[in-house]
């Protein structure tokens, strides 16, 4: 008798809990969506189940009255570049911190981590002055450069590389491989889940970034999604249905990326190289 033929009560309970939890998780997104299809929506404290006059006019407003398509393109472009850059800088640094011992490596790693410990709110004015000195204000490059390296990504990948058995390294070294080959052909393929995870998080952090793009990108052609969303709120009044439509539009690409990346995050053990 195979255990898969019996429906164990534990599995049923598990399913129920997971589904109930998922419904709870889905709720705020559903509320966002419902508000977006409620024309002239006020900021209701009691989310309604379904509006009688549901319409997509908020989405129409979004794309016709504001240059939202351009804004989305900006966000996508910047997020892609940031993600690729962070993958590269994080993987290389992580390899060094895991596989290349040197005097003072711990201190250097601590300094890397330290870059995460000062809030952006305090760095923004000096950073802005610095980018001004480089002549990069109101440019894509100015928005991108500070995002090229992230201690978060380096830390994440270092943990992952530490999990790759050194025997694999040594096997390759015996075959005459230098560090660059070990990095590219042994280590990287074995940390795919972490790379996929970092892809999602790097993309997300760029996608949702607000404060830096706000001060460095001023021209309407350059602005990104979070700024445009905030700009939907006026000094005195706000069209909440349009704001929520913007939120929905903002969430979808992120979700799509995550679902796509999931395949790589959840790999069978067989393909992770552990024999």
């Amino acid at each position: 008798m195979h255990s898969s033929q019996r429906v164990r009560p534990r599995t049923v309970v598990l399913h129920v809990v997971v589904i109930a939890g998922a419904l709870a998780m889905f709720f705020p997104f559903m509320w966002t969506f419902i508000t977006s299809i409620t024309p002239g929506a006020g900021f209701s404290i009691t989310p309604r189940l379904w509006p009688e006059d549901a319409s997509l006019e908020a989405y129409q407003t979004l794309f016709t009255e504001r240059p939202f398509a351009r804004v989305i393109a900006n966000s996508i472009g910047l997020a892609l570049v940031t993600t690729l850059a962070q993958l590269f800088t994080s993987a290389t640094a992580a390899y060094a911190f895991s596989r290349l011992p040197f005097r003072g490596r711990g201190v250097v790693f601590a300094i890397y981590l330290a870059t995460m410990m000062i809030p952006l709110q305090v760095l923004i004015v000096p950073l802005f002055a610095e980018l001004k000195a480089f002549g990069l204000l109101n440019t894509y490059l100015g928005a991108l450069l500070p995002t090229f390296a992230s201690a978060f990504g380096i830390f994440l990948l270092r943990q992952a590389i530490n999990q790759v058995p050194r025997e694999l390294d040594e096997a390759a070294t015996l075959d005459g491989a230098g560090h660059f080959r070990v990095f590219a052909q042994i280590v990287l393929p074995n940390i795919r889940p972490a790379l996929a995870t970092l892809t999602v998080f790097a993309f997300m952090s760029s996608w949702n970034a607000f404060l830096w793009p706000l001060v460095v990108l001023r021209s309407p052609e350059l602005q990104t999604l979070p700024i445009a969303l905030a700009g939907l709120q006026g000094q005195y009044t706000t069209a909440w249905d349009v704001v929520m439509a913007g939120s929905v539009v903002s969430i979808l690409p992120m979700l799509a990326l995550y679902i796509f990346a999931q395949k790589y995050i959840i790999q069978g053990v067989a393909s992770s190289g552990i024999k």
Partner: protein
Amino acid sequence: MVLPTAVATPPSRTPARSGRNARRPRATIGYVLTVLAFLLPSAVPLALFVLGPMIAAAWISFTEWNLITPMEFIGLANYQELLADERTGEVFLHTIQYIAGYLPLVYVGGLALALALNRALKGRSLWRGIYFLPVVTSWIAVAIVWRWLLNPNNGVVNLALGWFGIDGPGWWTDPDWAMISIILASAWKDLGFVMVILLAGLQSINPELYDAAKVDGAGAWSRLRNVTIPMLSPSTFFVVVISLINGFQVFDQVYAMTGGGPGGSTQVVVQQIYDLTFRYGAAGEASALSWLLFIVILGVTVIQIIGQKRWVHYA
């Protein structure tokens, strides 16, 4: 390990390196260049765009500056004022309260999720996607929904408590419960984040370890305690360190849910830093406060890094 006794060791020309040095390769030019090649891509942006401004912020912390008129050097006055002000202690206390509630909740919840969704469950890809949804939903929407759930008068939570005869608290309108409301909303929102990290970690656990444990007769609980959790420790370490670093800098959720109220009971450090810089014209004091925060975070992180030898098992 049994050491050989009284074995004559032939004299060698180069003394054997011991301890850390035993693992360190020789510092040849080639090796140095290799290390540099791997470190520079990240070191240059970090140095230019984070460390540089950090140093500038340190300089600003010794000045009085409202951003609009020129800076005025005042030495350690900002630090003295901050350390003497009871509000500094308050904002740190609120921040620590946040972390103390948030971290256990989000880790245990995220772990449970990761374990549950790691098994062969029907439609688990869909569930994983849905559980990740709050992570990418904006705080504006999450805050509204949670304030509605925790509405003291007719929110779902208090209604449910009422069925059990419990008089629900004022949640986000009550200074004693406001931070708890923020913690609940934050932990809930970030479950998916922890889940993703731990799922990736679970993938790297050698299934042979589980097989061996089953052969030894270990039950599910025992396998969890003796195989999963230790083997997951590098990911756990990551989650704990990052959650602490981010937790100390919590801002968005507080701003969205209570704005620091009611009565300043949820004012946290970074909210104070932002207010000081952009609303109260005290950028110097804000920088000083952020450096105090830095010292705290650094200390906590260093303790964890040192402590990892005790409980983190790498392959």
